[in-house]
C-alpha cells in the first residue's frame, strides 16, 4: 500500500485542562466534595483541582475555605 507521509512522531501536547469536566460541561466533583463545598460556602467554579486531570479534591475545597477565611473582609 502507499506509505503515508510520516508525520513527526511528536508526543501530543499535554493539554492540561484548567478544570476537569464531568462530561456534560459542569466541573467534575464527587458528591462528598460537593457537600464539603456547600458546608464551607466554597464556589466550586473558582477552585482549581489538584487531582488527576484537574479533579477537585477535598483538600482543594478545604484550602479554598481556609484562603477565604484568611482573606481580609471587604470593608
Amino acid at each position: 500500500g502507499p506509505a503515508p507521509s510520516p508525520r513527526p512522531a511528536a508526543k501530543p501536547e499535554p493539554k492540561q485542562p484548567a478544570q476537569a469536566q464531568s462530561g456534560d460541561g459542569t466541573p467534575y466533583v464527587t458528591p462528598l466534595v460537593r457537600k464539603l463545598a456547600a458546608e464551607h460556602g466554597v464556589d466550586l467554579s473558582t477552585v482549581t483541582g489538584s487531582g488527576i486531570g484537574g479533579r477537585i479534591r477535598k483538600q482543594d475545597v478545604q484550602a479554598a475555605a481556609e484562603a477565604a477565611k484568611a482573606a481580609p473582609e471587604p470593608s
Partner: protein
Amino acid sequence: GDSGARFDLIVLGGGSGGYAAAFRASELGMRVALVEKDKVGGTCLHYGCIPTKALLHAAEVADSARDSAQLGVKATFEGIDVDGVNKYKDGVVSRLYKGLQGLVKANEVTLIEGEGRLVGPNTVEVDGARYEGRNVVLATGSRSSSLPGLDIDGEKVLSSYEALALDRVPSSVVVLGGGVIGVEFASVWRSFGADVTIVEALPRLVPAEDEAASKVVERTFRKRGITAKTGARFSGVQHTDDGVSVSLENGETVDAEILLVAVGRGPVTDGLGLEDAGVAVDRGFVTTDERLRTSVPGVYAVGDVVHGLQLAHRGFAHGIFVAEDIAGLNPVPIDDAGIPRVTYCDPEVASVGLTEAQAVERLGDDKVETFEYNLAGNGKSQILKTQGFAKLVREKDGPVLGVHLVGARVGELISEAQLIYNWEALPHEVASLIHPHPTQSEALGEAHLALAGKPLHVHG
C-alpha cells in the same frame, strides 16, 4: 458498500473498549465505523469474562450440591456433563452476543467485518477497501502469551482459548501461572473433579493483590485440594502417552493430562501498520498519554492494547472517555488504581485502590493504617460457610486508599468500595451509614466503623 466512506470515527476492534467507544461516539452525534475481524464483543464476551464466569458458576453449583448435606439438604452430586456445561455457557454467550449486535444496530454504528489496518493517520484499510476517519481508535485487544520455547498445541498444551472449548474434564491439570486467569481455571477444574497443580514463579498466588489476599486464597485452595507451587519456575514440558510432563527449574516434574498456559496476555498490534503510520509502540503496547492519545494526532488507543490493567470494564471506561474527549467534553482521565479488580475463583478476591505495600511505599510506614475485618464475625458469611476478610488501607487521618476483600461472592461488594475509594471517603463518612443486616456488605461497614474508632462487632 461503504468503501471510501468518511467517518467521524473509525474504531479498529470490536471488543469491550472498541464497542464502548463506538456507542458513546454515536450517542454524541458522530458517524462511526467499527471494524471487527471476528465477532463483536471480543475476548471478553466470546473467550474471556463471560464464558469463564459461566464455568465458575457451574462450579459453584457443583460444590454446593456436593456439600449440601452440611446444610440439611439431601442432594447427590454425580458429576459434570461437559456437553451440558458447554451448552449452558454458550447459551449465555450467544444471548448476550445477540443483544450486543442489536446495540450495534440501535446505535447506528457501521459494522465493517474484516481485518483492518492503519494505512495512514486517518485511513483504515479492510479487505482492500479504504475508509477515512476524522479520528481513529485502536482497540485490537490482547491474546495469550507463552514462554519462550513453550508451544500452545491446542491438544495437550492449551491457552485459555482452547481450555474454554474443552470437551471433557481433564483428570489432572498443571496450570502455569497463578494470576487471575490461572486461579480461575484451577478453581473450576478442581470443582469439576480434576487434580490441579498451579505453578507460579512469583512467591504467591494472585501476586498483584494484597499479600493478605494471597494467603487466604492459598490456604483455601490447599483445603480444596489444589496444589500450589509458588516460587517455582517452569523449565520445560514433554509430551507423554497420556498427557504432559512438566519440569521445573528446581528439578521437580509434575505429570498431568494437560498443561494450561496462563502466564499473561500481550497486545495485538503486529501487522496493524502502526509503525508506518508513525504510531509509537512500546513492547507491542500502544504508547498513550493519560488522555489515551497516541503519538499521532487523531489516533487514540483503548483497552488491552494500552499497557495497564487488562480488564473489560477498563476497556469500557477507556472507550467512553475517548469518545467524550473527541466530542470536546473534556472528561476526567481514568485513574487505573480506581478501577475495581475481581478474581472469580472460590474464594473470590476483589480490590480497588492500593495494596498495603503500595501505600507504604508511597506514603511511608508511619502514614498508613490498616484494618482487617475477619468474615468469621459476619453473619451472612457464616451462613455461606465462607472464610476471608475485608481489609482497609487508609492514609492516617485521611481517606481510604485501598479496599481488599476475599470470600465467597465478594466481587459484588467491590462496587461500593469503588465509590469509597474514588470519592476519597473518610472512614467515618462510611461508618455513619449502617449496612443492611445480615449481608456480607456489613463486613465493609464494620471495617469502616473500626477504622473510625467505633468498632461494633469486632473481636480483639
